[in-house]
């Protein structure tokens, strides 16, 4: 009975199922704060031993070994600790999904194949339990990306703390997302379509994509030239891509998709950011030459092909780096991965184990995603004038065994507790009651 009752309760609460997390968003910074005596990893510049970082009204105002602290400064001793910019995950569906198996909690995929008009920020659930869990590992900023179809929608860059989607938006819209149609023929066990059917479907998808872009251009052209065309919400959403104010993020995992996307954006003169796997390394030369950045969807993946080197995904960052491609390491964006972006820094650590310099590995989850997302004037490194969005750690945040002890987002001190720490404490209490723990 209990379970059924619980189910009924869940069903009854479905619309309001996204129960608020217990962590209270921090108030705006109302007094200067200085972190004193720590090792400051600026990322863009030097590592400053025994340094101090001062921030006022959410912005960094001073960094150095001898910083004058204004009156009323709250001075926090961080001796022996390490200060880094908050980590940035440039691709995830966090905020758009709570429990993926529960349909009512899925908000990442709108109906249809071309829906640039849907904006992730609108559905970004600031009270998701996934958010405190993620920021406890140092993640301060993410790009929330819609899924599904060919054009999945428009993304925004969000901060990991705040009361509403408006106050947590750092940049919006940040881009339109295109899932490049499958180019090859799958012989996977789950594939029910024949090779011919798949190729036909591919050609149809590509033709539809061309058609959609052509219509968006025609619409844009008409409107720009003052022609009286009725407002079209869908095509209007493509205008920022066409006028170059936001990039087109092309999600293309396999080399044939990437090749096709490169040809297409060259021909259509579109500003492209590639979201991809280790297969991006196969076209690294062109990516570097055209200065197309890559959001790598993780290193903790398997080689795509049976005969490939076992460490193919581990060495992809190194290979992109050596080819001169700007890249960052993010999540695959899948709903499953949304709950697990807290492991992204460790994926960067693996890249360093397999040849990427450690300093580059750190940049691949801080400064580089900031640059790719176009928010590097504000975040991504510790520099005067940038947001005081930073973490204080017991050591290198790419090492699993180190702890993130504090996080500030725009100078606001964030609660690093979460559903996980709360349940942990609750059941520690149980075993204390049972005298099994001290």
């Amino acid at each position, binding site marked *: 009975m*209990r*379970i059924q009752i619980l189910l009924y309760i869940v069903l009854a609460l479905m619309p309001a199922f996204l129960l608020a997390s217990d962590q209270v968003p921090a108030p705006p910074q109302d007094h200067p704060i200085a972190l004193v005596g720590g090792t400051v990893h600026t990322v863009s510049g030097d590592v400053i031993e025994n340094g101090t970082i001062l921030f006022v009204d959410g912005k960094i105002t001073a960094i150095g070994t001898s910083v004058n602290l204004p009156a009323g400064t709250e001075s926090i001793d961080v001796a022996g600790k390490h200060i880094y910019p908050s980590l940035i995950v440039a691709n995830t*569906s966090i905020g758009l999904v709570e*429990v*993926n*198996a529960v349909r009512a909690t899925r908000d*990442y995929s709108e109906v249809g194949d071309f829906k640039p008009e849907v904006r992730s920020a609108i559905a970004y659930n600031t009270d998701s339990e996934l958010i405190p869990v993620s920021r406890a590992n140092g993640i301060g900023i993410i790009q929330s990306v819609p899924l*599904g*179809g060919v054009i*999945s929608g428009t993304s925004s860059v969000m901060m990991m703390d705040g009361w509403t989607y408006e106050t947590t938006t750092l940049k919006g819209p940040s881009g339109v997302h295109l*899932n490049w149609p*499958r180019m*090859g023929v*799958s012989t*996977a*066990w789950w*594939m029910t379509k024949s090779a011919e059917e798949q*190729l036909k479907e591919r050609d149809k998808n590509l033709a539809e994509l061309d058609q959609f872009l052509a219509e968006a251009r025609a619409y844009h052209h008409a409107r720009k030239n003052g022609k009286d065309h009725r407002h079209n919400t869908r095509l209007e959403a493509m205008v920022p891509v066409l006028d170059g104010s936001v990039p087109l993020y092309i*999600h293309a995992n*396999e080399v*044939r*998709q990437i*090749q096709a996307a490169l040809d297409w954006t060259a021909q259509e003169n579109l500003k492209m950011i590639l979201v991809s796997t280790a297969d991006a390394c*196969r076209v690294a030369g062109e990516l570097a030459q055209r200065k197309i950045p890559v959001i790598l969807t*993780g290193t*903790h*993946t*398997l080689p*795509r*092909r*049976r*005969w*490939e*080197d*076992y*460490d193919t995904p581990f060495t992809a960052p190194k290979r992109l780096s050596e080819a001169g491609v700007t890249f960052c390491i993010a999540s*695959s964006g*899948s*709903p*499953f*991965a*949304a*709950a*697990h972006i807290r492991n992204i820094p*460790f994926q960067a*650590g*693996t890249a*360093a*184990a397999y040849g990427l310099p450690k300093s580059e590995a750190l940049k691949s989850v801080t400064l580089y995603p900031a640059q790719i997302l176009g928010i590097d004037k504000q975040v991504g490194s510790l520099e005067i004038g940038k947001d005081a969005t930073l973490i204080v750690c017991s050591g290198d945040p*790419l*090492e*699993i*065994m*180190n702890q993130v002890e504090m996080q500030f987002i725009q100078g606001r001190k964030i609660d690093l507790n979460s*559903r*996980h720490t709360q349940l*942990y404490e609750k*059941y520690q209490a149980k*075993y204390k009651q*049972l005298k099994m723990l001290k």
Partner: protein
Amino acid sequence: MAFRPMLRRFRGGTFFVLLTVFGCGLLFAQTKPVEGLHDERPSVHALTNATIVQAPGRVIENGTVIIRDGIIENVGKNVSIPADARQWDYSGKMIYAGLIDVYAETKAADKGKGSDKKSGSAAAPSYWNDRVHPEKSVLELYSASGKDLASSRKMGFTSAWLVPAKGIFRGSSAVVTLGDGDIHERILNRDVAQHLAFESGGGRYPGSLMGSIALIRQTLYDAQWYGGATSAYAASSAGLPPEANDALAALQSVINGRQLLVTAIGNDLDLLRVMKLRDEFGFKPMLKGSGHEYRQLETLKKSRAVVILPLNFPHDIDLTAPENAINVSLMHLQHWEQAPHNPARLAAAGIPFALTRSGLDKKQNFHKQIQKAIEHGLSADDALAALTTTPAKILGVGSALGTIEKGKRAHLLVTSKALFEKGSDKLDLWIDGKRYELKKPSTDISGKWDLRMNQHDGVTRTIPLEITGTDKPKVTLLKGDHKVKADKASISNKRLTLLFAGDSLDMSGKIRLSGSIRDGSMHGAGELADGTAFLWEATFKETMADKKSEKKEAAKAEDKMGDIPIVYHGAFGRSGKPQMQKHILVKNATIWTSGPDGILEDADMLISNGKIAKIRAGLYAPGGATVIDAKGKHVTPGLIDAHSHSGIERGVNESQQAVTSEVRIGDVINSYSIAFYRELAGGLTASNLLHGSANPIGGQNAVIKLRWGSLPEEMKIAGAPEGIKFALGENVKQANWGDKFTTRYPQTRMGVETIIRDRFQAAREYRDAWQKYNAGKKKKGVAAPRRDLELEALVEILEGKRLIHCHSYRQDEILMLTRVAQEFGFKIATFQHVLEGYKVAEELSKLDFGASTFSDWWAYKFEVYDAIPHNGALMHDVGVNVSFNSDSNELARRMNTEAAKAVRYGGVAPVDALKFVTINPAYQLGIDKQVGSLEVGKDGDFVVWSGDPLSTYTMCEQTWIEGAKYFDRQDDIAMRDEIRTERARLIQKYLATGDGSGGGKGMKGSSGRIYDSHHSCRDHGDHDHGGHGDDGHHDHDEHQDHGHGTLNEVRR
């Protein structure tokens, strides 16, 4: 009229061969009244002046065959021709025994979906599973049309071995002639063999390979029981008789070894599976091969089984565009190279085989494929034997068919040249004395000719011609260097018809001509554009050179050598297993023992004969020892994963029933899975291969070491306790399977408890029944209880002989199974996942039930919303034995950093955290006496790490199992170059020989997925949203451009 049943012995079994021999007249139905006139034609024939291949290797030049009333009356060189014989002059021709169409798969005419159940009466007592119908005869399905027969004959077949094509126990096969007569006179032998295949899927039980093997096993035990129970009842007539069951009755001859059991296999691992079943049941095996038999020659030879070989050589591989070519695995390219040698390799090994056209995309390519096999080393005699004498023998019709000998049936094939020679035409077929003309001798006018046209006006022109092709010739007309292709050219009844444009040959309009063809010349009449007639004649000058085929021949000649070693495991495979080193000394390492000694700094470890001999500082290397200088490096025990689905072939779940304790992962290990090698590269040495979590009581597990390079049985850890997968919660109640899945019991956690309890109750009663039977003194006339493999596994749990590994999430269900275990008096080795274990850890601690959990997964299902990464640490803190598992081919290669998460979340000491992936899972699997820690006397399974094993910056450098090195990063890097070179060589070779179009069309077998490794167990989330394939969550022997996966197949 004589009617003589012949009795014949065949390999210990008795076959009744109905050989109908008639004193007069041709064969005809003997019981059917004659309508109209009797119409019996002369039936004595003399086939003369032919080269007669009596049997493979026995040739009579210029010989004669006498046929009387369908039987060969005489054959030889100097045979006198009977006066009543009609004479057939076959000078210049070859005569062979008629070919046998081996393994002609036969389906019911109406292609009914779903059940392939026998069409018999609904009251016929059949087996409960509709894939088991051994009582069905293929003749019930057979309904070949005249067209089908004609097309079979066209390929030289005079008889066919019809086999049923659907089901698991498919029924019995028959041999028929391919003449046009009534079926009554065409049957040569019935009940030739019983047919079996590992069929599964289609939304009914069995849904997996392991399920089909389990069903085969249960069916054969049922047949044994049925035989015993039936005879016990016959002896005593006490009580009620056993149930009537046609299927089990039909299988008596199989289990008694009287009837062949022919199993269709999908790859060479299936071959081993058949042999394992043979060892268990002692049936007489024959195999319908897959084309990979060359990989198991030793086993095949020992089995003494005959193999039906297909000629399904890979072709149409898309290697032209580099970006397509990369998707073809090295394993597949290697198979492409080896496959055509398959028949030759079997012949060389002395393994008897017949050839079948089953398995070809285009059946009409059969002879082309035989030629290919011959080009790759098969002798023409062996090929002929595989189509005549061998099948005749194995089908029990050796006294009637297979050779051209006195007294045999007149099944003959007449060809223009040697049968397997290029351009050999099949001309006539004789079946039981009746002649079927296959092809009129073809008219070959290919070559260079001079055409002379004599017009009425006295003008004479001479035009050189180039003609290629026979029957459908291509004609080119020449004027100097200028070439004109004829619009039309055809040959019919030895007459040529030609149409060409005259314009560029100094004539106008279209020119038409026709005429007769004689040796070396042609002549006839034609008409010009203006309607005036002309006469023409053509004379043969010379043959044309064929440059293209010369080039091909050269490539083929090179391939004939066939001495390229077989690399069984494809890329990163080795030609042999790694050798155990007698002594290995690891020096100056930081050794994490996972034992009482904790972490030893600057220590040495000696492994001798595969076992740990000494661990301490300052050891000296024995003579010949391999010394590993591990200064600055760390050494740990080989890591152990207590929850893996790596290398499980064709189905991780048997999801078609709620209770499937009869299925065994150990039956379906794919030792060729690249997952094992990749996991070795992450320091993993042992795994608990588990059934999925689709049902409350799942299948039996297999505990293995990752002995990459070995076969499945060699990977299993000898002496490891047997186990079984149980599962609770959302998966087993089908919560996330979709709206169609709402009727299987159970649908709630209440039902889950009830069904588990119910089965254990049944198991107790089953055990009692056997105990009673075994205690009884009088066995005669008392039927043994029926063996029930499902309950047998549960009895083993009750008796403490089988360990439970139970997938679980919520604390209530964990507690529930704990109570059931206490009530029935068994232990639970592990709760798997056990993500709310931290809520009831006191129970697990008290009862010493292990917890094998994810380090930090959560939130993908409602039942894991309370999962926390501190779970492992908290359970550990209150005394539970905790391990971290992977449940993923990807995660399984970095279990060391998973362990580090116990340090991060909950502050477990690093030395204890590592135990989560070493000694703790070893304890949970009952193999801790052997592995899991570095202690003297244990197996020499260890890993050399570049640094602290818990650091993300650390790499696995070497992985050793029992003193043999299975992974070495330096060797791996060297192998990468070898793989690139080997791929390049094979691609060049393929492109040079041009197998198939090679151009995107077809893509036949491009992935080379013969050992279908279903993806690992993590697919939640990304199953319906294109573009976001979650790469970490699929087994990647395949493309994954878009996320897919179904919740039905694999569950977590």
